[in-house]
């Protein structure tokens, strides 16, 4: 049955109400029902030259999958997506669609673009509920490939290579696979059962996962290089601090530590779970990206009054719009055009001294440069401070491989085939680009896997 919809009807989002969601870590966005998904898919114009696909870093055939959704062929829709993207339930939730596919969608000019992310998520969730269909594996090639790091890049590379018939060993230093998907992005944006299900799908292809193995220490570089090929997907996990006076007081966290304690170690359930965290009755978060937004929203759920301090203007916030809106709904106070300069306190934190910033001529990033306003210092009361000002590539392993060429920011330099300066060694994801996105990490890993295949077949 076709569902007829009057032109211009746009399906609303189903965010759980704020009162409820502040008391748990369950997903905020409830997703679409089957009928809603069909109605939304109906709106698609099925463009001959679809702009949305141009906006997609892994060029999913968006009109094709949307068409299948409109006709109720959800499994077929999933198959179309999976040709390009192995982890759709994750991407449907965390990709910045507003600057990718949805940002390009022609309907965005007049009304609202198609909710491509919501549809992708719906299709993936429906498929998972009915039992995932595993892709075919090619015959074993007898060659061994090592993949380092089980974040989105490593998982994607491992899955692609396993499908091509390689014996893949995936090394992960933590006690759980998933990388930032597990320890960084909170469950209310990305439920951990979903991450686990997608990881299980990768492992069921025959990938051997070795947890608790820090490559460079538990596995030597020499042992690593004994594989026929190596993919480095070690991410950008090195947290930057701001160098402020008072930064080492108890109660000062990097966003990585704060988020890891809660997402990976479940400190929100302390003392039932053993890992503690300073809950903080007044929390200040410095930064304006997804990481800052996540840290602020986690702190809010731990019961604190939370203030987010960002040095530029609200319109410059690099976080996804949707997440900024939700953070505001959840009662997080935004202080824009301000920068922390000092953490006050003796045994613990008592407040954060900030300075107002004014916007001057555009800097290298093309945005107006924030400059401190003299004599404009003010103090925000606080007992917990979280620095969410960025992360750099993990130096540990890559600095132990002397022949690996690295850029100024410590990133591994790769060519368009994701080859590094060392034969047999490939790299992709945040370790090559610096902190970026899940989909870019996956796209890079997929191309790298194909380059590895080509290299090994030519040998």
């Amino acid at each position, binding site marked *: 049955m076709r569902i007829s919809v009057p032109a211009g009807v746009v399906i609303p989002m189903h965010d759980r109400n704020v009162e409820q969601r502040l008391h748990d870590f369950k997903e905020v966005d409830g997703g679409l029902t089957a009928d809603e998904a069909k109605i939304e898919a109906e709106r698609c114009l099925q463009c001959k030259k679809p702009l949305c696909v141009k906006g997609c870093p892994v060029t999913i055939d968006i009109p094709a999958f949307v068409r299948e959704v409109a006709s109720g062929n959800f499994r077929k829709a999933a198959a179309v997506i999976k040709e390009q993207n192995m982890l759709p339930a994750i991407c449907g939730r965390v990709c910045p669609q507003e600057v990718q596919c949805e940002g390009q969608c022609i309907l965005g000019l007049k009304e609202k673009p198609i909710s491509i992310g919501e549809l992708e998520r719906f299709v993936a969730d429906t498929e998972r509920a009915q039992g995932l269909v595993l892709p075919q594996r090619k015959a074993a090639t007898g060659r061994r490939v090592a993949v380092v790091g089980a974040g989105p890049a490593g998982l994607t590379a491992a899955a692609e290579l396993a499908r091509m018939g390689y014996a893949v060993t995936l090394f992960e230093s933590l006690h759980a696979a998933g990388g930032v998907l597990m320890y960084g992005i909170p469950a209310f944006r990305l439920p951990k059962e979903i991450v686990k299900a997608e990881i299980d799908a990768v492992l069921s292809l025959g990938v051997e996962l070795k947890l608790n193995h*820090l490559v460079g*220490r538990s596995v030597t570089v020499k042992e690593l290089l004994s594989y026929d090929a190596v993919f480095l997907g070690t991410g950008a996990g090195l*947290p930057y*601090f701001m160098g402020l006076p008072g930064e080492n007081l108890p109660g000062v*966290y990097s966003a990585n530590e704060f988020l890891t304690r809660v997402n990976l*170690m479940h400190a929100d*359930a302390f*003392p039932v779970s053993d890992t503690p965290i300073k809950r903080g009755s007044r929390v200040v978060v410095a930064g304006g990206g997804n990481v800052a937004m996540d840290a602020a929203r986690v702190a809010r759920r731990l019961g604190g009054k939370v203030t987010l301090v960002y040095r530029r203007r609200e319109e410059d916030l690099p976080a996804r719009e949707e997440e900024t809106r939700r953070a505001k709904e959840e009662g997080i106070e935004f202080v824009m055009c301000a920068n922390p300069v000092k953490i006050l306190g003796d045994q613990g934190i008592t407040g954060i001294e900030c300075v107002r910033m004014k916007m001057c001529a555009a800097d290298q990033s093309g945005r107006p440069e924030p400059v401190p306003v003299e004599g404009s210092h003010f103090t925000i009361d606080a007992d917990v401070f979280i620095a969410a000002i960025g992360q750099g590539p993990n*130096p540990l392993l890559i600095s132990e491989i002397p022949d690996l060429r690295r850029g100024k920011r410590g990133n591994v330099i790769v060519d368009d085939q994701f080859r590094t300066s060392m034969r047999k060694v490939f790299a992709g994801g945040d370790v090559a680009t610096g902190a970026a996105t899940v989909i870019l990490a996956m796209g890079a890993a997929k191309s790298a896997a194909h380059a590895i295949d080509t290299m090994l077949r030519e040998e």
Partner: protein
Amino acid sequence: MYSIEKAEQLADKVYQMWVKAPHVAHHAQAGQFVIFRIDEKGERIPLTISAVDGDSFRVIFMTIGKTTTHLAALRAGDSVQDVAGPLGKPSETHRFGTCVLVGGGVGTASLPIIARSLKASGNRVIGIVGARNAGLLILEDEMTKACDELLISTDDGTKGFHGFAADLLKQVMAREQVDAVWIIGPAMMMKVTCEVTRPAGIKTFVSLNPVMVDGTGMCGSCRVIVGGETRFACVDGPEFDAHRVDFNMLMGRLRTYQPEEKESLERYNAHICACRGGDSHA
């Protein structure tokens, strides 16, 4: 899961445990550590690798809070969920000449493996082991074998020299040339003892024990200040030049979770009592 091969008590509140984990045992070097997570709800806690044999390694720990108390209750045949490692940089055990290794309390656990490594590079090694009383001394036999000479001090004089390990270190420095020193123990003991070697400018290493989470350089919980710079103890250490360490900062940060640690241990002990009570009625 990693199986516990052997578990026994060494002294009051001090236990040793051999755990089978080939990825750790085959790569471990002096000065490195592991991170244990006992079970799904467990905290990740760092413990120094104090010996290696085949596929297994040994840790020696003191029960001070929830996790170490829980660990001490495990027996051979039990297992721990996760063992990550070896982590941290190995000790710099090249040829110095004469080295003195000073251990305070459970810090002594780190010394035999460093002593053996220093001996292997041709050093003369003198061990100094300090404890509050004779009952708390550990590894006396092993250290006697690993070192050219072993000196013992107890705070109450129940064994060896009556006084502190720092005093014995002064005596050794007065009698012979010392080229490098390791001091491993509680933060306060390291802070005080390294003042003995500072005036003479003797190369001195301490092993720092800040609170850690991942142990891979990803969170910054373990940051310490050495020579005015922020370093991550889990990847840049745990051993650092003693004379450049900001011990006050380290000790301040170690107090971060004191109220939570107390709550956690009390809850665990209450739970254990309740279980034992239940048993006796059965």
